[in-house]
């Protein structure tokens, strides 16, 4: 019974955090894009537009769920549901920290840990195609259909190099369980170089990492591979005919997928929740320093040069919160009595940090790169990524075979 | 003693070298000359059509062609050198009481079979060698004149020299297989030379006929060799012949008869004589050399060579005699009605060969060989003379279109006249002696043979002189302007005439006497005289018929129309062969074997099997309706059946 209760608690927690993250990820994206394009971005709703996601959610929820008459209704409704469910389901097997013990109850940070977790993720992402494809088809609209077809073809195509790119670190890890994969990346070479897969001997998986990131862009239909929703060609691709909540579901699915793939990258290549350099060298002090610096900057700005109407209030408040967090981390780093807290917080910090950097990369790329043409996209997958992935896999297996014993 | 002291190999090798030089160098020079002639504005093709229009037996007259002196020199020289080398060797070897053998290399060795390339000389082959090389030289000289205007001059001499090579191998070979090489080789050369005017279909056909008929003979010869090896374990004359007396008579008879078949082919005996008259399609020197003097006597030589076998097989020997006699009679009668001068002499050759066989068959081997020699002299002379006549008349061969040439070509006439007397057995001339010896031996053997032979001899002298009289006496009936032949042609004629006269005094029987078994003595003087008289009677009759009152033969022919037709058509032998063998074979092969068995039966079975499988497939095809649903039903039905079987078998339990 413990198990069920615990699971429910964890599920609720994760769902809350995740949904919030999803909502604010969009805000972050809009902000970052805006700054890249030298615009201020959303700033009307709440301080620095911080309440914009909330406003969006309210708008989408309250909007009329318009259903065009020509659509194939069952599938029309099924598609976004399928997409978001599968995307969220994937999160359930992603751990973001080691096994911990809270009040004598051992539990994992993350919903569950399958022994074939990675395969599960792969399976879900491959099934995730249906959402897009069905949505496009059920809309009974040629732009939507083309978008759906494009996206399914694209996802099928990029799944192959992705799976191959993922196979290489798996060879090093020798397991499919995320927890064990992260476990094999613990420790440091020469006392400072982390044993992450991208650094791991005998064959550092840099190439696999790059490949994976590229394919991840494609899998999530992000720029430069966002052809399914290329608005200037296909209006808006597969979700042309969707509005209100159903549209929101697609949106959520996309961002959830982004989080999933970045999490996987973190787990497989970047050592998961392990710090980038050892505790002995003071890695524990990074989070307090960062938060403290952030808090200090906010305080400084809020007090000395507020830009907006509420800045002189909100920024100092956030700065204080940050400083508090910094204090908490600092306490964890130095006070042995806070050890249980540290065990929870630091892995989460590192995991979230790495994932966040990758997410930033996604946004950054979106702000920087143009879109591929469809044939280029396919050719790129089959004639470049695929062979390179195969060669990389072969090389890895060769090195593993030679050096493992 | 020094091994191979006398270099016998040189004897055949010289003509072979000549042949090669003529074939290669001569051809190249010929081409060069032709190319030069082209330069003078006369097209190649033009000269060709020209040559055909002349239309006589010199099918390939080429007005541009000049005889290549190198070719003449090489060909004559090589044969002459061979002749000289033979003479030198014979002188050096002395009396040759035992065979002199030189061994060179193993030719075929397989198990117990070991055939060496060995050459041997004994008394028999010595005679043959001299005849072949001697007469060969003369005919070569003659041919340089006779063939001087022919296209393919070099080719002719190449073949002729090649022939000499094979003939010498035939004579010199120390075992049956080597003899067989020569045997086949001369056949080949005969084929090539008969077909020398290959533009003429008849020439080619005649050559082919000669070769194939000879092949039939060779078939016998080859089988005989196989038997010899089986029962004697060797093919060497030195190993086989002395042991002949110890072998079972039946086997010897078989061997003897098979050898006789071979000899019949080569020496144109009944029933295989048909090729020889046709062989006259070849140039006349060829007829003289190959089809009169040398090659056709190879059969005689071979039988004589194998005499120990015949001695042990009286039946086979009797067969030799009978065949010889039959040939002699048959050919002589056919000769009566021939009008082509060369055909007359050809039948006469066949007939004379029959005499030789008769001689061999009655045990007078020496006489047979003796007749070979003398016949070589006078028959060569006859042919060369005939050639000279033809040459003089520009290709005319029909004696009905001749006549009165006596004065126009006196030298030719004189030499031919001598030859005719010799063949008729005029006392003192060479033919007289040899023929008489044969007939006397026949008389000794069986009287009837003697009588038949004698009558045949009479017929012989009749038709030879018929020919001579028709040619040289009376009025000239032709259109061409006769002219006497050049000296190169006349000199051999004269030399041969001399030999024909003196041939009887060369002592050949004496030389051969120790070689062959002794004949029982007992010459009947009466018989000899009768023979002589009959021979002379023939001459007189011919004179009466064709010089004194030319109407008589016509009358006889009319009164005996049937018989005349029979003879005129050569007893219809060619036609009989055609309809009895050639046609059935050809049609049978085409209709029964090829169309019937091959294409019909065997392929029919194969295709039929294909057809059966196709029809089974066709029946099954209806199941394959092409309809996917029906396939689906079939699949499920199959699954049901499988399941039922599984259940019936009790399942996996």
């Amino acid at each position, binding site marked *: 019974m413990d198990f069920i209760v615990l699971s429910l608690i964890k599920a609720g927690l994760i769902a809350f955090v995740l949904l919030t993250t999803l909502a604010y990820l969009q805000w972050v994206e809009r902000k970052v894009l805006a700054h890249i394009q030298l615009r201020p971005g959303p700033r009307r709703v709440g301080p620095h537009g911080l309440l914009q996601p909330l406003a969006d959610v309210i708008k989408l929820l309250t909007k009329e769920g318009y259903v065009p008459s020509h659509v194939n209704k069952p599938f029309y409704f099924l598609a976004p549901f399928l997409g978001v469910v599968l995307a969220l389901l994937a999160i359930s097997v992603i751990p973001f920290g080691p096994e911990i013990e809270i009040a004598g109850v051992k539990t994992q940070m993350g919903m569950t840990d399958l*022994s*074939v977790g990675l395969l599960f993720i792969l399976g879900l992402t*491959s099934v995730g195609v249906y959402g897009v494809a069905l949505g496009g088809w059920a809309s009974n609209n040629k732009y939507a259909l083309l978008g759906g077809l494009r996206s399914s073809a694209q996802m*099928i195509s990029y799944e192959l190099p992705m799976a191959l790119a993922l196979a290489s670190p798996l060879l090093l890890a020798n397991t499919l369980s995320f927890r064990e994969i992260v476990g094999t990346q613990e420790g440091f070479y020469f006392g400072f170089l982390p044993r992450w897969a991208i650094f791991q001997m005998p064959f550092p998986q840099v190439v696999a990492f790059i490949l994976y990131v590229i394919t991840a862009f494609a899998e999530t239909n992000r720029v430069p591979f966002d052809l399914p929703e290329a608005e200037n060609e296909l209006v808006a691709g597969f979700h042309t005919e969707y509005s209100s909540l159903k549209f929101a579901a697609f949106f959520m699915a996309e961002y959830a997928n982004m989080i999933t793939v970045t999490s996987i990258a973190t787990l497989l290549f970047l050592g998961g929740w392990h710090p980038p350099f050892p505790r002995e060298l003071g890695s524990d002090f990074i989070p307090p320093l960062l938060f403290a610096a952030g808090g200090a900057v906010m305080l400084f700005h809020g007090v000395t040069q507020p830009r907006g109407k509420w800045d002189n209030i909100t920024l100092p408040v956030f700065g204080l919160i940050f400083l508090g967090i910094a204090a908490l981390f600092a306490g964890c780093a130095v006070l042995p009595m806070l050890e249980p807290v540290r065990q929870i917080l630091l892995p989460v910090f590192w995991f979230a940090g790495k994932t966040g950097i990758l997410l930033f990369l996604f946004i950054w790329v979106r702000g920087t790169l143009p879109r591929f043409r469809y044939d280029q996209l396919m050719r790129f997958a089959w004639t470049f990524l695929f062979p390179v992935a195969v060669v990389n896999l072969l090389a890895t297996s060769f090195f593993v075979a030679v050096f493992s014993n | 003693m020094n091994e191979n002291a006398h270099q016998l190999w040189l004897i055949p090798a010289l003509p072979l070298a000549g042949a090669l030089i003529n074939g290669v160098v001569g051809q190249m020079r010929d081409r060069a000359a032709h190319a030069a002639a082209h330069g003078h504005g006369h097209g190649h093709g033009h000269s060709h059509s020209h040559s055909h229009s002349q239309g006589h037996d010199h099918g390939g007259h080429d007005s541009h062609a000049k005889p290549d002196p190198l070719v003449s020199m090489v060909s004559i020289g090589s044969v002459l050198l061979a002749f000289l080398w033979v003479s030198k060797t014979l002188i050096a070897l002395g009396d040759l009481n035992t065979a002199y053998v030189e061994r060179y290399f193993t030719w075929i060795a397989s198990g117990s079979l070991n055939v060496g390339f060995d050459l041997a000389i004994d008394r028999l082959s010595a005679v043959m060698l001299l005849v072949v090389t001697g007469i060969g030289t003369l005919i070569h000289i003659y041919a340089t004149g006779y063939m001087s205007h022919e296209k393919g001059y070099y080719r002719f001499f190449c073949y002729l020299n090649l022939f000499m090579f094979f003939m010498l191998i035939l004579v010199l070979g120390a075992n049956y297989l080597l003899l067989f090489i020569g045997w086949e080789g001369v056949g080949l050369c005969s084929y090539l030379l008969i077909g020398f005017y290959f533009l003429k279909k008849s020439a080619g056909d005649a050559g082919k006929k000669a070769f194939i008929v000879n092949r039939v003979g060779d078939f016998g010869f080859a089988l005989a060799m196989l038997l010899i090896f089986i029962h004697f374990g060797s093919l060497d004359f030195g190993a086989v012949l002395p042991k002949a007396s110890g072998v079972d008579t039946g086997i010897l008879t078989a061997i003897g008869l098979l050898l006789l078949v071979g000899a019949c082919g080569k020496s144109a005996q009944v029933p295989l004589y048909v090729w020889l008259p046709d062989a006259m399609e070849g140039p006349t020197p060829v007829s003289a050399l190959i089809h009169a003097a040398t090659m056709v006597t190879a059969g005689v030589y071979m039988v004589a060579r194998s005499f120990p076998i015949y001695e042990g097989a009286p039946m086979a020997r009797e067969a030799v005699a009978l065949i010889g006699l039959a040939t002699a009679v048959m050919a002589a009668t056919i000769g009566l009605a021939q009008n082509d001068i060369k055909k007359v002499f050809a039948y006469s050759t066949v007939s004379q060969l029959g005499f030789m066989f008769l001689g061999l068959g009655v045990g007078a081997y020496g006489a047979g060989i003796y007749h070979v020699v003398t016949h070589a002299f006078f028959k060569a002379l006859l042919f060369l003379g005939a050639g000279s006549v033809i040459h003089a008349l520009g290709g005319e061969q029909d004696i009905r279109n001749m006549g009165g040439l006596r004065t126009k070509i006196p030298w030719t006439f004189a030499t031919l006249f001598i030859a005719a007397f010799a063949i008729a057995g005029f006392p003192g001339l060479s033919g007289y002696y040899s023929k008489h010896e044969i007939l006397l031996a026949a008389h000794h053997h069986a009287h009837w043979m003697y009588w038949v032979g004698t009558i045949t001899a009479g017929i012989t002298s009749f038709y030879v002189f018929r020919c001579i009289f028709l040619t040289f006496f009376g009025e000239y009936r032709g259109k061409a302007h006769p002219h006497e032949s050049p000296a190169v042609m006349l000199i051999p004629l004269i030399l041969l005439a001399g030999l024909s006269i003196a041939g009887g005094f060369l002592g050949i029987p004496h030389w051969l006497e120790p070689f062959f078994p002794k004949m029982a003595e007992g010459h009947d003087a009466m018989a000899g005289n009768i023979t002589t008289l009959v021979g002379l009677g023939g001459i007189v009759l011919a004179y009466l018929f064709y010089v004194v009152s030319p109407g008589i033969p016509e009358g006889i022919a009319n009164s005996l129309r049937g018989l005349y037709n029979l003879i005129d058509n050569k007893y219809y032998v060619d036609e009989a062969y055609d309809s009895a063998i050639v046609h059935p074979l050809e049609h049978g092969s085409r209709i029964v074997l090829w169309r019937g068995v091959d294409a019909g039966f065997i392929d029919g079975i194969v295709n039929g099997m294909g057809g059966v499988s196709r029809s089974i497939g066709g029946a099954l095809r209806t199941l394959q309706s092409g309809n996917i649903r029906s396939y689906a*039903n079939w699949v*499920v039905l199959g699954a049901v059946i499988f399941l039922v079987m599984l259940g019936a078998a009790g399942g996996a339990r």
Partner: protein
Amino acid sequence: MDSLFFLAFAAIAVACGINLVIQTHPITSALSLIGVMGSLAVLYLLLGAEFIAMVQLVVYAGAIMVLFVFVIMLLNAGAEKRVARPWKPYLVGAPLLVIFVGVASCILHDMLGDSDPVIFGSFTQGGAREIGRSLFTEYLLPFEVTSVLILIAILGAMVLARKEF
């Protein structure tokens, strides 16, 4: 608990299967099939076949069925046409099916004896490690052969997809 899971997913599978057969529109059938496959994947998990369950998702649901759906979309295949004599296929097929099911169930009945209860988690050999081990040792040759088969299939599909046909 296990039984409930089984019955639930078995029910989904059978329902989807029936839907597959009775629906006239191919895409409905395809989605039904995906439903069957998904529930089968769960049943595999119940049977301890984790790896196969995942592969079922990846390969069947994720690859093969996507291909089906893709093709259906590409051809824009509509529902089956109404034909003049819709009973025709049943003429032979229905008796055949009845016989087949009858025979099969007879045999099944005949052959099903006592079998072990399926306890979730009792079978632990279905992980990637065990399957990988036997796949690359005992079944190496078949494995390689199937890889060649796949290669051939790829080539075949490419050839077929060329414009000339």
